[in-house]
């Protein structure tokens, strides 16, 4: 029986119009990318992504760069990635980008044009997700690269040595991976929330609260959070102080690939559920 079922499934998959879907996805992604990146309304995402870069560039111009302070600046960069980008910048950036993709089109009463066109809804959803992810990644990854360059290059030879011969390049890779996973993780969650609720913001803010209190939750519950996976990928330990440090539940250190795989599985599960939801999505503009 199994031997008969396998070729059937393969044949079924081969018979699907993949080339058409690919073309449709490409066009849809291009439209969304243009709207997300080059509109006046998207300017606030540039602000969220590049404001730390602006502050670091002032620091690189104004402050003296003694090679002994490289470790301080490394710690500072880790804090910026962990406390600003993951908790605020990427979070609110993705909330704005991804909740607009479906719910925003409903508000503007334009989603039915897509739904009436001969495009599979899953293709529509995944293209929109791809466009949102590309926007978020382009801005936040560029900002991270610029931050690292502006932190280390003003140190001159010592900074270049740290970056290219020391642990700098590994840290940069880790930061980029963290930002990529954060954008994809938050993006998938907000896309789903925007389909589930008329107003996704309270849900997103509850999610922000969940992410904030996550370190003090039991280790089992910590697995249901984006930030907990990202914490294991941080190349520099920034440490917590005060009452939070007392309440923090230290989990077993997890290997980088396990954390990455765990988060990718979470993203896949959320996207699969979103694909299932969009098949039965109905629009009632009168209630929006």
């Amino acid at each position, binding site marked *: 029986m199994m031997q008969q079922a396998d070729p059937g499934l393969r044949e079924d998959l081969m018979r699907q119009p993949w080339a058409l879907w690919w073309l449709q996805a490409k066009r849809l992604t291009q439209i969304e990318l243009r709207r997300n990146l080059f509109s006046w309304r998207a300017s606030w995402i540039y602000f*969220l992504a590049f404001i730390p870069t602006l502050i670091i560039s002032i*620091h690189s111009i104004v402050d003296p760069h003694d090679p002994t302070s490289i470790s301080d600046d490394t710690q500072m960069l880790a804090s*910026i990635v962990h406390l*600003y980008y993951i908790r*605020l910048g990427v979070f*609110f950036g993705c909330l704005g980008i991804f909740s*607009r993709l479906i*719910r925003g089109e409903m508000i503007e009463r334009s989603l039915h044009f897509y739904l009436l066109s001969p495009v599979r809804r899953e293709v529509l959803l995944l293209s929109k997700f791809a466009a949102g992810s590309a926007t978020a990644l382009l801005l936040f990854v560029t900002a991270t690269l610029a931050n690292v360059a502006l932190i280390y290059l003003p140190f001159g030879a010592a900074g270049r040595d740290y970056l290219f011969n020391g642990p700098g390049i590994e840290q940069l890779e880790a930061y980029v991976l963290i930002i990529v996973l954060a954008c994809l993780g938050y993006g998938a969650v907000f896309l789903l929330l925007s389909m589930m609720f008329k107003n996704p913001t*309270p849900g997103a*803010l509850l999610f922000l609260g969940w992410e904030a209190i996550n370190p003090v939750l039991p280790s089992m519950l910590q697995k249901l959070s984006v930030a907990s996976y990202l914490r294991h990928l941080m190349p520099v330990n920034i440490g917590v102080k005060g009452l939070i440090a007392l309440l923090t539940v230290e989990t077993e250190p997890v290997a980088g690939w396990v954390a990455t795989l765990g988060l990718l599985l979470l993203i896949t599960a959320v996207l699969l559920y979103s694909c299932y939801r969009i098949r039965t999505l109905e629009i009632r503009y009168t209630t929006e």
Partner: protein
Amino acid sequence: MSIYKHHYRAYTGRVTPIWTRIFALARYGLAEAWSTKITAVLFVICLIPPVGFLFTIYLSNNPSARLLMGTVGTRVLAIDGSFFLRVLTIQSWLAMALASCIAPRLITLDIVDNALPILLSHSISRFGYVLGKYAALFATLSTVTWVPCLLLFAYQGYASPVPWAASNLRIGVGMLAGALIWIALISLLGLALSSWVKWRGVATGVIFAVILVPAGVGAIVTGVLHTKWGLLLNVPVMMSYLWERLLDVHNRIDNALQLPTMAIVTMLALGCCLSMVMLNTRIRAREVVRG
């Protein structure tokens, strides 16, 4: 167009005083704010901490409970400035959540549905319109901030076996002033941001983002540029400093990071002015027609 009937005359009866007209808007604003279940749920959540604090005050003034808790009880159940600072802080942040839910309901719908020209064609000014909405939001936020805070203060004054209220009047006045400053700020900010965002859901998020993101940016400025002035972008920190000073509570924060009260007040005033400019730009009797 020909007009055949010429017997229309202007109304000559008694006219409602101008200052009372804003109450009509406030009344409808309140009805709109309370028309959703989420407002009721949030309001109930806002009242849970005061119940807990009330119980703490009761225990603190109950000799049997104090005896049972021993020396730990004296420390845990101390009713002083720090206790009321905790009450004020929690209530103020809950009020912020309530404001982010209510403010967009009050103003976004009027703007998105192009209702402003109709509303402002009545005998009410733009200032009156904003004041009416502001009054609705301010009244709702008052019920979860200074009202429960002062009720707890009054209960402590009543339950305490020794004269307490008169000697701690500074705490009561500080709580009232601190809560009024906070709700005045978030009401203005909430209305201003809601008037600029046409999607109600986004407006809720934007209100939070406008408080939290500059706080993060301020922390980066403080950390990277080694200056305490970055904290002037951090509303939560500024308000904590202000509340501590109003309630005369000694804080545990490093002296080097302390901000002058005048700088804090100036920043908050600037925030209010910016909100008023935003409202002035947006609240106009115009209709947006998209082709």
